[in-house]
């Protein structure tokens, strides 16, 4: 046994290797991405690993591998499971022979997400087991159990860590790696794998018949367990269980829920031994609803009677406040701490030298009174520059644009979407817009990489997840194949050239596509691209502020003059914006 200090996602990846995983697929999404990033970076891989183009594609690939009898892992963030929901729902009917673990990472408080949905509801909906870890060690240990559990019941198992598991760290006890890479073999069985109505009705019945045995097994396995210590009890799940344990008085009983579905009979016996119970869980009242079903006359405290919040993430302080309010703590353990007020915020910002900033600038210059639907990526930060008017889910920039165009809205509509998002779910929207004759401009922000989640390669990058070189797809050819006649590629560091193309697009009718192509500034730096910095000539600078309003973190403004700091990566856009020519190469006048 070895002990290491690991990120939750690294511990999860290690547990997959200890489980002898054979097949791994997924689409990046915070907070899930480091699992595959860890696995694809291992030097002696005996398993197959891919970054798929989206979560539906990833899950269908992993499901097929599990049908062939090998152990498969599929990773995504919670909203990715919406994209993969179609195969998920029916995979519970067809079942699997090799273990299939679907990791869907939830993000309470929406640290890097568009919503706070709860993956446990999907597991409930699909009637598949769901594991809900409370710490990094727990996450590691649960993965070891997840593959055999999947094989025992012939069902996919959902594994649902949250941000505070994936991106927390701890000392973790690890076991030895087990080589994967077994050869899969598909045994034809149409009654199992062809879900025509006659087959699927029977499969649905079989799925329902598995449920009581699953509930019992999850208790036997110790995922759900309790300790009776007094007349009152707290039932907690996920990271909330860790917070409760730090605060738990000696005379309060404790139940930890780590897996679903919960055995109701077992739960009811526990609840009825107490005079009142408090339920602590993040997001949906998944545990609480089951507790309420079995509680009879025992009072239940939780979200449904206003003791705990439905939204946001828990913390030691919020859990303490809930426990105190419900009468489980005599006094508040933490004194209130007030942050210093009125400090200037430091939100995330597009990097110095990011291609998106130049493109957004050119768009605003040409399309002055336009509507800007946008999408999910670093470029959503264009909100700060006034060029993001909508953002709802992956791929929805193009579809929102065409919907607006057909709604009778008369202003120009210019949408932005990144290359990875375009390949994820953007292409269908583009095809639909052309097919139905929308009048709009699509800007594909092509930085050759999936940047926001940590620079994962995609089919546009030219390498696979494991670094094997492959021919990159042609975004230009895809757009033309969708029926777009006006497809132009621009360099967003060349403001004049970009403005000219956008002006041409503005004049034309129909769907126009402008591809703004430059490497992500971070990958460019890692690849050794050196452009040299720029500097402001203080004597020429009039302090007009044009460059400052561009919003680049390399440009500061002190004593009525602009100044370029060492974040400058040499994109040269500010040189083109300066009305008096005060910006030049560093070291030259």
């Amino acid at each position: 046994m070895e002990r290491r200090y690991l990120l939750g996602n690294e511990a999860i990846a290690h547990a997959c290797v200890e489980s002898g995983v054979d097949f791994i697929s997924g689409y990046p999404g915070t907070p899930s991405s480091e699992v595959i990033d860890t696995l694809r970076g291992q030097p002696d891989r005996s398993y197959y690993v891919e970054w798929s183009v989206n979560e539906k594609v990833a899950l269908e690939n992993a499901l097929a591998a599990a049908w062939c009898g090998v152990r498969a892992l599929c990773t995504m963030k919670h909203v990715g499971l919406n994209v993969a929901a179609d195969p998920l729902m029916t995979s519970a009917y067809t079942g699997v022979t090799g273990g299939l673990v679907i990791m869907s990472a939830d993000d309470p408080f929406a640290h890097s997400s568009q919503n706070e949905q709860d993956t446990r509801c999907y597991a409930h909906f699909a009637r598949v087991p769901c594991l809900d870890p409370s710490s990094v060690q727990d996450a590691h240990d649960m993965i070891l159990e997840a593959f055999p559990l999947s094989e025992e019941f012939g069902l996919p198992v959902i594994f649902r860590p949250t941000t505070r598991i994936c991106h927390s760290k701890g000392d973790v006890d690890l076991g030895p790696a087990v080589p994967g890479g077994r050869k899969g073999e598909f045994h034809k069985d149409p009654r199992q794998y062809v879900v025509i109505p006659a087959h699927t009705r029977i499969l649905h019945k079989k799925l329902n018949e598995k449920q009581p045995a699953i509930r019992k097994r999850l208790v036997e396995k110790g995922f759900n367990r309790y300790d009776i210590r007094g007349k009152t009890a707290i039932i907690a799940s996920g990271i909330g269980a860790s917070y409760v344990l730090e605060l738990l008085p000696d005379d309060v009983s404790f139940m930890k829920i780590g897996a679903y579905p919960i055995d109701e009979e077992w739960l009811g016996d526990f609840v009825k031994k107490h005079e009142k119970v408090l339920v602590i869980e993040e997001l949906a009242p998944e545990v609480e609803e089951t507790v309420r079903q079995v509680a009879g006359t025992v009072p239940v405290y939780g979200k449904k009677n206003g003791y705990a919040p439905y939204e946001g993430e828990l913390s030691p302080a919020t859990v303490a406040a809930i426990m105190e309010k419900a009468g489980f703590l005599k006094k508040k353990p933490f004194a209130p701490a007030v942050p210093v007020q009125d400090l200037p915020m430091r939100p995330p910002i597009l990097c110095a030298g990011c291609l998106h900033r130049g493109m957004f600038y050119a768009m605003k210059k040409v399309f002055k009174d336009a509507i800007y639907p946008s999408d999910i990526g670093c470029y959503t930060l264009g909100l700060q520059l006034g060029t993001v008017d909508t953002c709802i889910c992956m791929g929805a920039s193009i579809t929102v644009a065409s919907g607006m165009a057909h709604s009778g809205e008369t202003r120009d509509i210019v949408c932005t979407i990144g290359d990875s998002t375009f390949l994820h779910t953007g292409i269908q929207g583009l095809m639909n817009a052309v097919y139905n004759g929308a009048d709009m401009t699509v800007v594909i922000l092509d930085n050759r990489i999936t940047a926001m989640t940590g620079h994962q390669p995609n089919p546009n990058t030219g390498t696979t997840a494991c670094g094997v070189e492959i021919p990159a797809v042609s975004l230009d050819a895809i757009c033309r194949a969708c029926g777009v006649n006006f497809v132009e590629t621009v360099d967003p560091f060349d403001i004049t050239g970009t403005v000219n193309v956008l002006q041409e697009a503005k004049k034309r009718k129909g769907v126009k596509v402008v591809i703004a192509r430059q490497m992500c500034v971070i990958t460019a730096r890692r690849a050794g691209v050196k452009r040299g910095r720029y500097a402001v000539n203080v004597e020429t600078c009039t302090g007009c502020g044009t460059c400052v309003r561009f919003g680049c973190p390399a440009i500061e403004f002190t004593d009525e003059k602009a100044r370029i700091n060492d974040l400058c990566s040499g994109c040269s856009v500010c040189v083109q914006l300066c009305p008096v020519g005060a910006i030049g190469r560093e070291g030259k006048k």
Partner: protein
Amino acid sequence: MSGSFDILIVGIGGQGTILASNILGEACLIENRHIRGAETHGMAQRGGSVESHIRIGGEFGPLITPGEADLLISFDLLEALRYSHFLKKDGKMVVNSHLVLPTSVFVQNLKAPSEAEIVAALKKHPLCLLDADSLAVEAGSPLSANVLMLGAASGVMPLKPESLLEAVKRLVPKKTVEINVKAFEAGRNAGGTFR
């Protein structure tokens, strides 16, 4: 609550808070102690304010409650003030005197406190203020400022300096071990008698 020694490391995305957290974790492994941590990943790292929670001896959740931290290590002057409420009454601070003003200050013309105002406000707590950027350049690389800050804080942490130094050697890129060892020692000197 649990008897852990709680350290909050804060800074700006890209300043190396994650490596600093890993070094503390490795030092805990060397001393066979439990540790819990939580950090900022993803989009928030793009030049935004970032925080790393580290609980030496921690066995429960990874988050430090505001008002409970034993030590605040800040890689930026303004961020030290932003997170100062995390410290408990007698909690200590090790702060880089370098100040990077947020871009929002220039773009939206927001008011920012002056360096002198920030330092005055920080002095509510025992404070070790050092110019980590300049000292790191002297040690051989501006990128070693994070290790230098750990050196400066090493007198206040319940970990042996030998364990920290061993952790630094294990975790920094091979080519930079010498520079980082120098930076750690320079930090220890700058920290001096700060206890």
